[in-house]
């Protein structure tokens, strides 16, 4: 039997493969196995229906946030159009499912591919622009896509929205939150697996090289434009996939949610979670989704306090205020995000209780 490796007392790496391995110790492998087991076998059965819904939203947001982190955190290209790409995915799924009657199992990846195509088109400016000029170009992309979603009425039904059929996998109808939980989180696990492995391949390393120094990367023979487009494509595929699941989960969609605000929310997730870290994107998605729910709950309570409503104060905008404050505080005090906080906590406990 292979010797298990739990707590190495030093750096015993002898081969390059040991450097890029996913789990540095068997401890990590064991824990992720336990985590996945708890996630699928225990968690959905013990939480309340409302919390299950929140978890589903977290799962969808995580998929899209991982995509955005590949683009911003690993490739260093700032995109303000992620919300629109999610919208493209949602509409692609809705249109495929209603007008073409494509089965559910095909619409999800197809919506991802449509979104990837659109993402690559709006990534073309990255061939000539970088930094803030590219950011402004993606901002324009967001606003143009938003306009098309509202005004291309023959395809998107405008402000009427589209109602989707119930998803159906091999004769099984998905309708409860519980069945969606299994769908969303199995997709999420596959997406995480793909993302962490992508980073270890030649493509991931090329992305990181482009982020760190694009001229040096080009000097080492990385075709910048092709890899940037690829990064835009992969990132939008994630966004479109998440959008498609979202559309099915919400049953009917309009163009209303896919605004610049949504794009900003996703960038906030990626920053608060930690740029350049797949697990960070998930922490960020959890944080922002829970923050949203918490603020909704808080404003709900404060609306019912007579003294506050009588004084004419409208507490609903507090949501916006706290959201902004969270972003600002994280950038000022922990710019590496929750992933870094978690790393610090873990390294403090590594050899606990013996500090040395």
């Amino acid at each position, binding site marked *: 039997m292979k010797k298990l490796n739990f707590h190495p007392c030093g750096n015993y790496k002898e081969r390059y493969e040991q450097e890029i391995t996913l789990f540095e110790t068997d401890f990590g492998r064991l824990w992720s196995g336990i985590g996945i087991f708890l996630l699928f076998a225990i968690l959905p059965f013990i939480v309340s229906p409302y919390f299950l819904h929140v978890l589903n939203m977290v799962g969808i947001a995580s998929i899209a946030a991982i995509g955005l982190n590949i683009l911003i955190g690993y490739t260093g290209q700032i995109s303000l159009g992620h919300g629109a790409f999610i919208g493209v995915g949602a509409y692609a799924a809705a249109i495929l499912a209603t007008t073409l009657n494509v089965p559910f199992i095909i619409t999800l990846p197809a919506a991802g591919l449509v979104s990837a195509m659109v993402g690559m088109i709006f990534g073309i400016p990255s*061939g000539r622009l970088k930094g803030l000029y590219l950011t402004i170009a993606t*901002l324009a992309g967001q606003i143009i896509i938003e306009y098309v979603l509202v005004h291309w009425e023959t395809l998107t039904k405008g402000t009427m929205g589209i109602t989707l059929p119930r998803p159906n996998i091999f004769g099984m109808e998905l309708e409860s939150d519980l069945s969606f939980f299994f769908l969303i989180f199995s997709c999420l696990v596959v997406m995480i697996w793909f993302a962490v492995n992508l980073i270890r391949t030649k493509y991931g390393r090329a992305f990181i090289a482009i982020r760190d120094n694009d001229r040096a990367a080009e000097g080492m023979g990385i075709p910048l434009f092709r890899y940037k487009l690829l990064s835009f494509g992969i990132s939008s595929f994630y966004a479109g996939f998440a959008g498609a699941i979202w559309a099915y989960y919400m049953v009917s969609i309009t163009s209303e949610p896919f605004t610049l605000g949504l794009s900003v929310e996703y960038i906030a997730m990626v920053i608060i979670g930690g740029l350049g870290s797949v697990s960070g994107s998930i922490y960020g998605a959890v944080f922002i989704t829970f923050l949203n729910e918490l603020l909704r709950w808080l404003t709900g309570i404060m609306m019912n306090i007579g003294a506050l409503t009588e004084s004419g104060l409208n507490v609903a*905008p507090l949501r916006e205020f706290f959201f*902004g404050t969270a972003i600002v505080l994280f950038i000022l005090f922990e710019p590496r995000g929750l992933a870094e906080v978690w790393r610090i906590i873990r390294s403090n406990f590594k050899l606990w209780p013996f500090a040395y």
Partner: protein
Amino acid sequence: MNFFLQLFINGISIGFLYGLSAMGFVMIFKSSSVLNFAHGELLALGAFFFLAMLTWVKLPVVVAFLATLAACFILGFIIERFFLRPLIGEPLIYVIMLTVGLASMFKGIMLLFWGGNLQTYPDFLPAFLGIEWHVINIPPVYTAALIIGIMFLILFGLFFKYSSQGIFMRSVADNQKAALSLGVHVQRVFALSWAIAALVAGMSGIVLGIINGINVHDLSAIGLKVFPVVILGGLDSIGGAIIGGLIIGLLETFTGGYISPSLSDVVPYVILVIILMVKPYGLFGLAEIERV
């Protein structure tokens, strides 16, 4: 022909307002190369502060105007000192997201106090400012806006050309390291340019508020409209901001008048993408943008 003329005049006046709003934005970018996504909220803050001074404190118009400008000046100073100074040297994404975060903080505060409804100033402009000539009909607000705008342009032109602080600001914009080694207090220049930019933003906010009424959502939308304007004019050219504003304003009203009203919102951004692809440094910007 009358329709054309009226559209033309509308376009010029809207475009002038865009240019005015973009001026503060350009000023911040020029000195500290920060892309300010909170610009629309700064406009709105100025407009609301003026409203508060007029209706709650009941100050006379001129005093209220000056008090608003002073408050905006201090606000800009505070923003730079406490939020942007710690980020000097950090990657671009943090600076951008910080201004986005500030934008949503300000928006929350304004919605809390004034709500999302349209508010208007009490009428205080003298009627003789209005111009009526043949078919051309220019309401007094536009004349007032034009006068204020040109006055500010001249004042800032003189400030940048002759005052020592203005020369420091230009030197920092030109070459930060050289300015630093020649003894320019670069941090003070950053703070000053934020303060002046906030002041200009507050002033434009008041003008926009007089014309369109004050609404948080509309004014922050103008903050986004600033991007096509400044890219067209050149990100670091104040005169370019005005010209860019005029062109975008004309394009908007003509598409709105001749093709379709809903299209007029998206046309500036289409222009933006084209400009970025063809001539990213705009009409009057310095051609030193880094090509990949």
